[in-house]
């Protein structure tokens, strides 16, 4: 049963991702990007991470998506000119992608999960959100403080870069 759901989500995610990079109108791309984000959130639920699924919907679909649509509307881009939406260096890009697929395929084919297994079994994960909250404010307090500084910097940066000149 879960497997069927997984395939549904996966097919939607992959096809909307392809749509994002192949459509000419940036607004359409943005909408398909949103579809892809929602599928990823659904996959998080299959992986027993409801908190991350909620964060994914709030942050990506709520905030990032709005930013993209806002930028598209402000810049008033419209459709790209027909037949001009690929780089001239696309052969190099295709070689890079084939190389990546080759290396990763080779690695994944030989891979098997043999790392030590941790203590968070499926039963312990019933309190997923609580455990995450606790770890975030105890064990991971250093990166937590660093990302808070990062968000402050992003705020300052957005103001500095976009605000019109004062006379």
């Amino acid at each position, binding site marked *: 049963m879960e497997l069927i759901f997984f395939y549904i989500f996966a097919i939607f995610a992959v096809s909307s991702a392809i749509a994002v990079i192949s459509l000419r109108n940036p607004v359409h791309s943005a909408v398909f990007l949103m579809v892809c984000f929602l599928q990823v959130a659904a996959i998080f639920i299959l992986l027993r991470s409801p908190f991350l699924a909620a964060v994914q919907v709030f942050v990506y679909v709520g905030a990032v998506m709005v930013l993209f649509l806002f930028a598209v509307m402000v810049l008033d881009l419209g459709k790209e000119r027909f037949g001009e939406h690929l780089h001239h260096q696309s052969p190099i890009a295709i070689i890079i992608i084939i190389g990546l697929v080759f*290396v*990763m395929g*080779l*690695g*994944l*084919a*030989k*891979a*098997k*999960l*043999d*790392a*030590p*297994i*941790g203590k968070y079994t499926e039963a312990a994960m019933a309190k997923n959100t609580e455990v995450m909250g606790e770890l975030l404010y*105890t*064990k*991971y*307090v*250093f*990166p937590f403080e*660093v*990302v808070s*500084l*990062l968000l402050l*910097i*992003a705020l*300052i*940066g957005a103001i*500095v*870069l976009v*605000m019109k*000149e*004062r006379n």
Partner: protein
Amino acid sequence: MDVNIQMFLPEIVVAFLAFAILAADLLKPRGERKSLARLGIIGSLVAINVLVLTADISGTTLSGLFIQDGVSVFFKILFLLTGIFILYMAQEYEEKIKNFKGEFYALILFAVLAMMFLASSNDFISLYVSLEFLAVTLYILACYTKEESVSVEAGLKYLITGALASGVLLYGITYLYGATGSTEFSQIKLALNGKNFSGFLAIGLILVVLGLSFKIASIPFHVWAPDVYQGAPTPITALLAAGSKAAGFVMLMRVMFTALGSIRPHWVLFISVISALTLLFGNLAAMPQKNIKRMLAYAGIGSAGYLLMGIAAGNTLGSGAIMFYLLTYLFAIAGTFLAIVIFYNSEGSDSIDAYTGLSRRSPILAATLFIGLLSLAGVPPLGGFIAKLYLIAAVVKEGLIWLAVVGVLMAIAAMYYFLLVIKRIYLWQPKNDTPIKVSPINKALLYSINIATLVLGIYPGPFTDWVMAIAKVLF
């Protein structure tokens, strides 16, 4: 959770300093902000003092995610010194920045803070967030003169390459986590003991090295360097050259030696090939350049190749040599870029043509470029020569003779293109021979930077002993 506040006291000082500058900027009326840069310089000196006073406290804190040892102390001193030079350069450059002058200094301090966090990261999570903190700060700084279209173009190119590289790095980290079940460097080291080299590990290793190549500007993520070095405001170019590269190498040393040291046979050839390609590309592409910042960008790519030789060597000698190289590199870059800023303020040009006959117009600027560029090229008796010598010795010791040969050949190539610039400065006739004014403080600073470069070359003993002693903690 264990918290030993003394271990991150210098970081707290720098963070408070940056916030103080932001606050003071709001209180001051409009106009110049040079006093804020001076506040930043004094505060950074205080932070260095705090760091030296607490240097003997070593160990991990904040649940093992934060580490303080000899290497992190060395790099933090290096970053704070870089910050001081950059703040000084930035206040010389202030007229070029139209708005938000106070934030410019605060962001430079935040970049220094991010680099200090990187030097103390003992876990892939803290490494990744500190790296992104540094990267986002530098994206903003690179396009700070947003009225100039080259500056915003540089910022955008930097951001796209940087985000792509950080994606590759993160994917690699994911696979290392999958292979070892942990993100902490010491745990990864434990998990790798007596383990087969699995597919997950191979993917993770390749992608992490490729992702980290962005910060140090080595192949394959070197493509941003020329455009960004040329387009960014000059103090920020110096920050990218001296600070960002050093931050990249402290990460690389911790990841490759501490976390992945036990699987060195699997990565040594990979790193050596990247190092050789980077050396060849950087030094050969630097030759035809006409803009001095762009030429230094290619030379910087070449330097990344040299420093990677130290990573490939994977021994104490190699990692000590990396630290010594970065120290000499800092002084060479600080002198050269301060001279470039002073020259730009007077002439309004960065093209190498404009430097023709500089020795007749300003002997001190010419002498600084002479010493700085020759130290970058690795000419004896300057600091850069000793550093290159140690790096080459380190790879020879590990039997990588072919890499040492490439290194020596490319040192000769570097001498060639730097000597062309120096010939232009000293032997050619200037088009106009009005002298360039250099203020007494600038003169004093340029003299002391030049003396530092000379001292590192003539009397390197105490410094090399120091870096070789602290390099041991990595293994």
